């Protein structure tokens, strides 16, 4: 495992903020789950650019690493990432919220190359990821399965069933990333259904756990690139994030779980995101 160079970090920051702008552009066509998309997009940017073994030109390559978005409503982040990677033409993004669009409010594997499994109903993607990881073991393949969860989603019983069985079946090719933005649709997760201490729960279920800052590209990269943390055990990365990170007036507000931006306000929002990008680069001395 190496560290990211400053230049690499700069590229990743620029990429993740370019993708955030694309999400806003999609929102010219209607409301979206922007909060979770913005909290998770730094992780997805690192995954698709630095971690996953994949080939957008051959999306069904049998040895590819799989990414399952169990918290399917974060899919705006996935769409802009997949388009950027070349899985499909970017023009598809601009059909959002129109009849028969392929970029639905929850992802569909039959619609878009790169979407591994349809998700949306919470608590479904994680057990599916288990099944794919079991297949990899059975077929003696080396691919890994990454599954992204939300911390609100962790109230679902099926998450803990899957967590128990992944450890039971020693799925060290499975990596769960919890986008812990601490908010869900109706408020603060700790007040709606307190899942803390999440790390202790995963630990006691037989997982190796790391907690990272989900907006620190070095931490994201370093953690993802040393998975599995331990042979014979599934790995869990709890990424502390900020809901709607990058859109300052929406940050850490549950009302931005799902947000409708008036069309004439999109450009202003794009400017706000641009300013945050500049500050992020300045913070690490990379803005010129």
């Amino acid at each position, binding site marked *: 495992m190496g560290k990211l160079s400053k230049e690499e970090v700069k590229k990743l920051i620029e990429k993740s903020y370019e993708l955030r702008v694309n999400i806003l552009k999609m929102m010219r066509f209607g409301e979206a789950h922007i909060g979770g998309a913005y909290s998770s997009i730094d992780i997805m940017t690192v995954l698709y650019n630095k971690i996953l073994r994949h080939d957008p030109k051959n999306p069904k390559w049998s040895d590819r690493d*799989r990414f399952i978005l169990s918290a399917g409503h974060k899919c705006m982040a996935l769409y802009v990432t997949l388009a950027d990677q070349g899985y499909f033409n970017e023009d598809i993004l601009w059909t959002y919220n129109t009849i028969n669009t392929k970029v639905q409010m929850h992802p569909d*594997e*039959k619609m878009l190359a790169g979407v*591994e*499994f*349809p998700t*949306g*109903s919470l*608590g*479904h*993607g*994680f*057990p*599916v*990821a*288990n*099944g*794919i*990881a*079991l*297949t*990899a073991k*059975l*077929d003696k393949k080396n691919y890994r399965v990454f599954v992204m969860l939300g911390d609100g989603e962790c109230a679902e*019983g*099926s998450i803990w*069933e*899957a967590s*128990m*069985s992944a450890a*039971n*079946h020693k799925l060290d090719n499975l990596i769960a990333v919890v986008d812990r933005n601490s908010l869900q649709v109706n408020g603060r997760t700790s007040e709606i259904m307190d899942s803390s201490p999440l790390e202790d729960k995963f630990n006691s279920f037989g997982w190796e756990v790391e907690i990272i800052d989900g907006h620190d590209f070095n931490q994201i990269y370093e953690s993802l690139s040393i998975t599995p943390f331990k042979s014979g055990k599934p790995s869990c990365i709890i990424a502390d994030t900020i809901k709607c990170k990058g859109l300052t007036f929406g940050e850490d507000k549950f009302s931005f779980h799902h947000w409708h931006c008036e069309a004439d306000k999109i450009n202003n929002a794009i400017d706000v995101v641009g300013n945050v990008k500049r500050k992020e680069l300045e913070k690490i001395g990379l803005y010129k």
Partner: protein
Amino acid sequence: MGCINKNNNIFDDPRKVIASALVELGKINKNITYISCDSSLGASGDPFRKSFPERHFEFGIQEASSMGTAAGMAISGKIPFITAYVPFITYRCFEQIRDDVCKTNLNVNIMGNNCGLSVSSLGPTHVILEDAAVLKALPNITIISPADGPEYKQAILAAAQLNSPVYLRIHRKKTKRLNSEGYKFKIGKGSILREGSDVTVIANSTMVAKSLEAAEILQREKIDAEVINMHTLKPIDSDVILKSSSKTKKVVTVEEHSIVGGLGSSVSDVLIKDNPVKLKMIGIEDKFAIVGQYDELLDYYGLTGPKIASTIGNFLM
């Protein structure tokens, strides 16, 4: 005309037939996997586990996530057979069946053990009389209720071949062998086991044998009943229903299932559109099951050969 084996008195245990069919299947197709929800030993998975331990997966009592895991296996190239008691492998994980298995149209084979009144003494939490009705509403699913040993075996083999979800309703009671070993089972194609001209009797699962028994009783009263084994509830074989009902003008359905949304309802859907003849549905009324011995309950619900014959006789009057 189906391949009826008239003069025998052979009874098959569905679980044993399925167990050996799965081993046979496992030998010829290395992608077959078995997912047990603490159900393998009591169901049909133990011989498979012994033959292919690496392809047998125990998931304990967690049917919701196990169904999702089966979908994950299927989308990555495996052909899972997943099993548990009917209520747990249908209702507990209904949304996983809908979203993860049916919407994706994956080759996941769901084996619902102990359907109908099979485990009548366990009470209504375990005796499920509406499973077929509930699952029938889902797009892409095929629902099969085999009538005898050869059909259970063929259904297992056919389910693996069909590249889409299958729900197999598996009864616990031994079934009288109706079909010869050479029987050609085809999903979605009803099988005429007895030709007749006065009334069409359409049945599935255990009620096929009971309907044949009823037909023999009716014959003594000069009533000539045609008996169709409608092993596939979905997709329903409209052709055989319409052809037979055009001849007899009267139809009776017989099922060990609620008459709400079951076989009778599917047959009714076909008839009302294309040949609206008189229809009598024999099954269990819209109620939760009472508790009792299996044979007692069949009698209570009017599902014995003589009672079916009597109901049909009254219907034809």
